């Protein structure tokens, strides 16, 4: 550093404490072991979220909510230069983000990274996944084409099946009895204002916790004596690899978005019958199929209520896992949690496969 840049650095450092941050970054270490690969998935999810924000703002430049929604998306897709690419990138990165969050969640689960003192990391992560799926559900309606219309109609039947308050919730979300321009308008408000306002601080909290507690080690690694464990510095070594993964993700996204552009269906029309083989997005396929299966065992309202109960119970158990299997010494409980995780993965995969199988 020349003396001039050094003196500018000192001036800024004195006011912002840059050296403290640099010292913190220098001391931060990332464990290196056979499972280190899974450490990248949180970062990939973060990167895809940033892509969502960026492409989302670009779509916001031309999108009209309300009655003109379809026409404005048609204009973005077919009139504006590269509008199809921006829209395709937004849809593709949304799907990839959900995928990478799921990978991140299951890797955290099986590495038992939710154990003390990381309970809040687990809970905030689950809340972020919940918000991400509401992002996906609300964003899906915004083009107001045939598919988004029916997906929203069917999706809103689930909260509407809750006893007593269900119909009120359904009408509040729809803005009336039907999915129409009022629904698009409120989903738009949800998608671009309410959800980001909830998601961003929660994401900040989640990332702050990662800085506070560092990367968790899997039990197999923790069993080793400290001298045998390997680490690498976060800055610049791990950060460089992290950014490398971001670049790989960006390339995959660019390839998918341009080679398989997201389509736009016919405008939503409640008088046109639902197309044959209509089905939810892949990340909603499993709950959709589970509800369908329960519905065939327990027909009618009983099945709907049972479905909602089973779901709520499953999600609550999943959420509370750090309090059941909370400490390093939890041998029997640790194994039980592991099998519960395997069961969850199996149930999700199996119902998703059955769901796709039965469409055809």
């Amino acid at each position, binding site marked *: 550093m020349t003396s001039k840049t050094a003196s500018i650095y000192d001036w800024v450092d004195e006011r912002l404490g840059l050296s403290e941050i640099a010292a913190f970054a220098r001391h931060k270490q990332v464990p290196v072991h056979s499972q280190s690969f899974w450490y990248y998935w949180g970062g990939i999810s973060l990167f895809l979220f940033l892509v969502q924000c960026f492409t989302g703002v670009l779509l916001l430049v031309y999108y009209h909510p309300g009655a003109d929604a379809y026409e404005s998306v048609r204009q973005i897709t077919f009139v504006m*230069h590269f509008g199809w690419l921006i829209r395709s990138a937004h849809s593709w990165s949304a799907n990839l983000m959900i995928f990478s969050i799921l990978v991140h969640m299951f890797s955290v689960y099986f590495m038992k990274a939710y154990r003390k003192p990381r309970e809040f990391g687990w809970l905030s992560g689950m809340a972020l996944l919940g918000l991400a799926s509401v992002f996906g559900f609300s964003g899906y309606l915004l083009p107001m084409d045939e598919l988004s219309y029916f997906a929203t109609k069917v999706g809103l039947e689930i909260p509407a099946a809750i006893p007593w308050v269900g119909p009120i919730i359904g009408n509040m979300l729809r803005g009336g009895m039907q999915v129409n321009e009022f629904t698009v308008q409120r989903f738009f408000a949800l998608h671009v204002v309410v959800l980001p306002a909830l998601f961003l601080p929660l994401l900040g909290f989640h990332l702050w916790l990662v800085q506070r507690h560092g990367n968790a080690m899997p039990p197999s690694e923790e069993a080793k004596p400290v001298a045998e464990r390997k680490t690498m510095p976060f800055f610049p070594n791990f950060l460089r690899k992290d950014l490398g993964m971001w670049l790989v993700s960006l390339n995959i996204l660019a390839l998918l978005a341009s080679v398989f552009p997201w389509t736009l269906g016919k405008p939503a029309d409640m008088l046109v019958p639902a197309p044959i083989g209509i089905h939810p997005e892949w990340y909603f396929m499993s709950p959709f199929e589970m509800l369908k299966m329960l519905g065939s065992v327990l027909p009618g309202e009983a099945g709907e209520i049972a479905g909602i109960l089973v779901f709520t119970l499953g999600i609550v158990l999943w959420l509370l896992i750090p309090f059941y299997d909370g400490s390093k010494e939890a041998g029997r409980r640790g194994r039980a949690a592991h099998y519960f995780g395997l069961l969850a993965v199996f149930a999700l995969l199996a119902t998703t496969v059955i769901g796709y199988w039965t469409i055809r």
Partner: protein
Amino acid sequence: MSDVLNVPHIVKDSAEPGEQRTRRAFLIAAGAAGLAYTAALAYPIYRYLASPQEMEASATAVTEVTLKDAQKLLAGSVLMFKFGSSPAMLIHHQDGRWIALTAVCTHLGCTVQYESAADRIHCGCHGGVYNPYTGANVSGPPPKPLKLFKVAVGDAGVNVSRA
């Protein structure tokens, strides 16, 4: 034997400037690749955001506008219309003359107004005044006159074209 020992020694000595050269070439290539990558990302985004400008540019390529039924405009009144993408005005003066001009103030771009009582064109933003027959800037801040169009009054409408 000594040859064998010497070879790496010689290679190492002569390689130092060469190594620097390959390092430099690598950095230049990496920089160029990075630049090309960034450009490939930025270009679609720029074109996407510039789409309305391009549509407007094709709209300003308009050379004439026919205003249907505008021949019925009463003397002493004005008709505001769009010439391409920008506002323009057609004035039917008390003396029977037809005048069409751009309605964009040459000062800071506000839309100007014809005041028939004062027989002047006035800009509400900063008080610029123009002559309603010639478009000349009379008083206030405007630096240039308003541009005149050619006007042809027909039975079905008024045709306004670039002068």
